[in-house]
């Protein structure tokens, strides 16, 4: 069974690859809006990719107040 740590790592890898940011520059506690330089439209794009990667459905309202990768991972973990 995957752990939050494992899920966080997968999110960081996926985000780095898609938004062309070096993986080494991302940490679990980073604000993904700031670190990836994305807006709400691009955040939706990331959400879709995460849903496909983890094979889950994650309502966007679950991301209310979520801006760091670790908390995002916890939300995803609760759907696995």
């Amino acid at each position: 069974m995957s752990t939050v740590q494992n899920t966080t790592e997968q999110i960081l890898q996926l985000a780095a690859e898609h938004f062309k940011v070096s993986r080494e520059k991302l940490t679990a506690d980073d604000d993904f809006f700031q670190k990836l330089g994305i807006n709400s439209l691009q955040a939706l794009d990331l959400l879709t990719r995460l849903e496909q990667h983890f094979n889950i459905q994650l309502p966007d309202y679950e991301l209310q107040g979520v801006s760091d990768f670790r908390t995002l991972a916890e939300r995803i973990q609760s759907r696995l």
Partner: protein
Amino acid sequence: MNAFQGKTLSWQVIDGTIELVLDRAPCNEIGSATLADLESFAAALESLQKEAHALIISSARPEGFCAGADLRELYQRSQALEQRERVSGLRDFLNRIHMVMNAIDAARITTIAAVHGVTFGGGFELALTCDLIIADKMARFCFPELRLGLIPGFGGIPRLQRDVGNAVVRDLLLTGRSINATKAQSAGLVSQVSAEGDVLRVARSTAVQLKKFDRATATAAKRFIKPIPYDMLRREIEIFCDLFTRSAAEAGLRKFVESKDALPYLP
């Protein structure tokens, strides 16, 4: 008029398929300019479909098919009017939008919405007028209107009820959440999902299939199986106009207008 270039969209007929392409920055928000161009299209559709067998509606904007109504324009125009004029102006706008949506919905030819990215609000409603929705795997669908103190006003609820079960309608409308193309397909809303960036090719391939069939037969079949819920559509306009005058809508729209984000009501 087999080809047209407007301010917000264009169309041309290619191999018997009418291709209508939305192209207004940032994401094809439907305001007065798009409405005027859509009215031109609706007027031309009667003669266009005499020689065509299919219509594909797609978007040239990378962000998506359509993010919905131009809420900034709607809010700013309404603020410039007295309360009574505000509602009558809104009702006029909605009646015009509905005439366009109804014209596409009632087209004799088979219609395809080839959607990608953000397909929200009025954009979702435009897609729902079509017989088939073909979605890029990265498409997302949403009725965010409750977040703004409103309901969909371009015909979305009656058309969504026509296509999917009431539980799905309640989920989308009452939570205001967005769903991806996979979920939309499993709900029966989307007929095909394409690889990323490939939706227009898939839509064109589907249009080639449609070309094989006798047009009068296809028209008869479509009229038999696809009722247009005119009474519910008229009720939706009245409910929308009533909600628009309330403080929740005023506050929701003001917050939207004051934000610089593309979709400030998310998440």
